[in-house]
């Protein structure tokens, strides 16, 4: 548009030039005609002809020039409008891209090799709390926290080292107000036309994702830490591919290197050979019944050590994950070891209390040995006299020797019984008659009963089933209850001191009851009776009943105490009858 007057003026000038040239030629011919030859001469005609011809030529030329200049003008005009349209389009596009650049929710930076910001979009600057002008010409390091600057610098260096390649990383930035944001940066170095390298950086705010990731990572870390602390790993079992998906702790427990999954066959090799068949049975049943399962087994580690683990798994109904069972496995080695140690400690303590109880019974035991011993000595003397007779009375002597043997054995049995109680190693369960155990104990406390003037009443049921038990431990329990009963009746003077030992049974268990008519039990003590170190005796250790309860408990039974309706207390313990499934 702006060029149009110029083109027009140029066309008019051409026309004026051609016209004035034709007129000048005509004028020259006219002048020559007026001054030169006569009008009838040949030169005159020639001059006229020339004049006419030049006028005609100038008219033709003007017409030609006018046409071509019109054509030219049209051409020029068309070209100019196309150019204007193109410029318009370009301008629109530029504005549009500018808009995009400025407001795209991506932060764009353009920095030079020294890290100076050459360009930044409004969004990018705004995200960091700056205006564009505040960042332009500044070092880009301004938007990084001190600890990230090194990384940022090296990242830029890496880009500059590989011009044209795109790099990406995640980095933390700092806003003007000091708050931080996490970004993912895609960067690429390019060369400008002046050969200067620059780095184009596009950043995307990933703070939320990063926070979620951190939260997840933290939660995973907590979980891993909790697993590590509790020695409990988790697992998933894909029955189809027979693969196990393990947590880190599970790998640690089983002593395998961490892997995405592990074949079950590999794991089974680690199970203690003695437990393997049982584990396979359990898992096979769980799989076929699609039921939760729980089992304990041992692992035989490559170094020969043994670990105890306890696993519990839940059958997963939702099979979209391909996991059939989800479970947890705990390393219970320490607990098992503690249990064994506890058991040993309890056995030692039981032994100590047994020996203590025997100490209380020393007089009684001495009596029990002394009686047959006195009989032996007396009989031996009698035998001597039968033999010294004239003639020797061999019949009497033989009968006497038989008595000596019998009484000697009796003394031996008492000593045997005491030795068994003093013996430390027990814990051998055999099928025994509880009545026998009671009678053995009674034989040791006869003297005690006598010296405390206690009447013993035995109400032993004759047809009791056998119980699977440790004879010595049960003797200890009964001995303890009997001694307690005797001692409880010590202060009693206004009524006969009677101790009743009764045995009876029901469908599943046999019961032993020891009932006294002594001082009885204070209600507030009933609960504490079986606590360790609880005693009402001035010189008691307070271990007796506590140990009795643990012994009975270890036999699958229960020891309880109750106050009598009348004076005294009753202690009762139950033991499972020796049937299938007895512990």
């Amino acid at each position, binding site marked *: 548009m702006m060029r149009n007057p110029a083109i027009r003026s140029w066309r008019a000038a051409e026309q004026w030039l051609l016209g004035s040239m034709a007129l000048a030629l005509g004028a020259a011919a006219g002048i020559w005609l007026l001054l030169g030859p006569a009008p009838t001469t040949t030169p005159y005609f020639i001059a006229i002809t020339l004049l006419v011809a030049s006028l005609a030529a100038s008219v033709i030329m003007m017409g030609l020039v006018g046409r071509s200049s019109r054509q030219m003008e049209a051409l020029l005009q068309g070209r100019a409008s196309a150019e204007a349209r193109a410029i318009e389009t370009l301008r629109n596009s530029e504005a549009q891209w500018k808009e995009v650049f400025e407001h795209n929710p991506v932060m764009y930076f353009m920095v030079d090799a020294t890290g100076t910001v050459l360009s930044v979009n409004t969004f990018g600057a705004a995200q960091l709390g700056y205006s564009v002008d505040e960042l332009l010409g500044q070092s880009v390091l301004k938007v990084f926290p001190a600890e990230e600057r090194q990384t940022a610098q090296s990242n830029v260096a890496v880009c500059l080292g590989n011009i044209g390649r795109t790099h990406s990383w995640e980095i933390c930035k700092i806003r003007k107000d000091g708050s931080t944001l996490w970004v993912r940066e895609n960067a690429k170095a390019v060369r400008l036309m002046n050969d200067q390298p620059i780095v184009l950086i596009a950043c995307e705010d990933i703070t939320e994702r990063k926070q979620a990731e951190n939260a997840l990572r933290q939660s995973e870390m907590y979980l891993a830490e909790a697993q590590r602390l509790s020695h409990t790993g988790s697992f998933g079992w894909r029955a189809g591919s027979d693969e196990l998906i393990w947590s880190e702790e599970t790998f640690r427990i089983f002593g395998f290197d961490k892997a995405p999954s592990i074949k079950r066959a590999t794991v089974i090799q680690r199970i203690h050979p003695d437990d393997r068949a049982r584990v396979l049975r359990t898992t096979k049943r769980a799989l076929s019944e699609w039921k939760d399962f729980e089992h304990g087994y041992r692992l035989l580690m490559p170094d020969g050590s043994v670990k105890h683990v306890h696993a519990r798994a839940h059958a997963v109904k939702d099979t979209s994950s391909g996991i059939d069972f989800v479970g947890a496995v705990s390393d219970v080695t320490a607990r098992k070891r503690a249990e064994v140690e506890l058991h040993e400690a309890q056995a030692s303590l039981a032994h100590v209390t047994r020996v203590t109880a025997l100490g209380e019974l020393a007089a009684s035991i001495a009596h029990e040995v*002394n009686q*047959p011993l*006195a*009989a032996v*000595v007396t*009989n031996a003397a009698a035998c001597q*006299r039968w033999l010294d007779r004239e003639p020797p009375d061999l019949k*009497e002597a033989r009968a006497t020797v038989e008595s000596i043997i019998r009484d000697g054995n009796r003394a031996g049995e008492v000593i045997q019984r005491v030795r068994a109680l003093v013996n430390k190693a027990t814990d051998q369960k055999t099928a025994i008659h509880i009545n026998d155990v009671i009678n053995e104990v009674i034989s040791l406390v006869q*003297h005690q009963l006598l*010296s405390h003037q206690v009447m013993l009443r035995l109400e032993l049921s004759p047809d009791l089933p056998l119980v699977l038990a440790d004879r010595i431990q049960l003797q200890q329990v009964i001995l303890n209850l009997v001694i307690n009963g005797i001692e409880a009746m010590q202060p009693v003077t206004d009524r006969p001191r009677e101790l009743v030992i009764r045995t009876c049974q029901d469908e599943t268990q046999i019961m032993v009851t020891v009932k006294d008519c002594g001082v009885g039990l204070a209600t507030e003590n009933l609960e504490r009776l079986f606590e360790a170190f609880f005693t009402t005796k001035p010189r008691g250790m307070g271990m007796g009943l506590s140990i009795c309860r643990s012994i009975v408990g270890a036999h699958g039974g229960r020891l309880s105490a109750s106050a009598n309706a009348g004076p005294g207390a009753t202690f009762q313990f139950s033991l499972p009858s020796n049937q299938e499934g007895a512990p």
Partner: protein
Amino acid sequence: MTGRPASPSTLATAEEPVVFVIDDDPSVREALSNLFRSVGLRAEAFGSAHEFLQCKLPNVPSCLILDIRLPRVSGLDFQAELAKADIHIPIIFMTGHGDIPMTVRAMKAGAVDFLTKPFRDQDMLDAVTAAIERDRNSRDEAKVLANLHALFATLTPRERQVMALVTAGLMNKQIAAEIGVAEITVKIHRGHIMRKMAAKSLPDLVRMAELLGIGPASGRPQT
């Protein structure tokens, strides 16, 4: 009754001494019975004091061997019980472990011996012999006394009165004055007394009076 029963032939012999054994342990009482039989002593054994009391004791020299710890009643208590019941049988105590207070109490209460189990057979036999001897003596004494009582019972009340005064050392004259009779009557009473009591002399009669526990007071008339 437990232990070996004495043979019927020995039971028949009235004067044969018997050893009674009370011990709750059958072995011990059997062994003791055996020992006594081996030396020709008759022995009867019992498991408890109660059983012993159920048995009628023969009137022969005897002794009792008693375990100090017995069911229900202790040996020492039983000793006291027997004394209360006027059964005076020499007692030999046995114990598993004798302590001094127990021994002292037993001996004070008249025990013959106190043996600790197991004892030497000879100690036991010596103790039994001594005990039976003691019983035999006391039985003899008792027999004499019973005889005296029987003789004394034949006296008339006046004669008993005179006997008391005579044995108290009073002269006939004094006695006559005391009881208000003639001296000659006193002399007649004295003669009767000496004959009835089978007294050889006045000192003999005085000894009898002592055994009978007759003092001058008993001779005095009731006023």
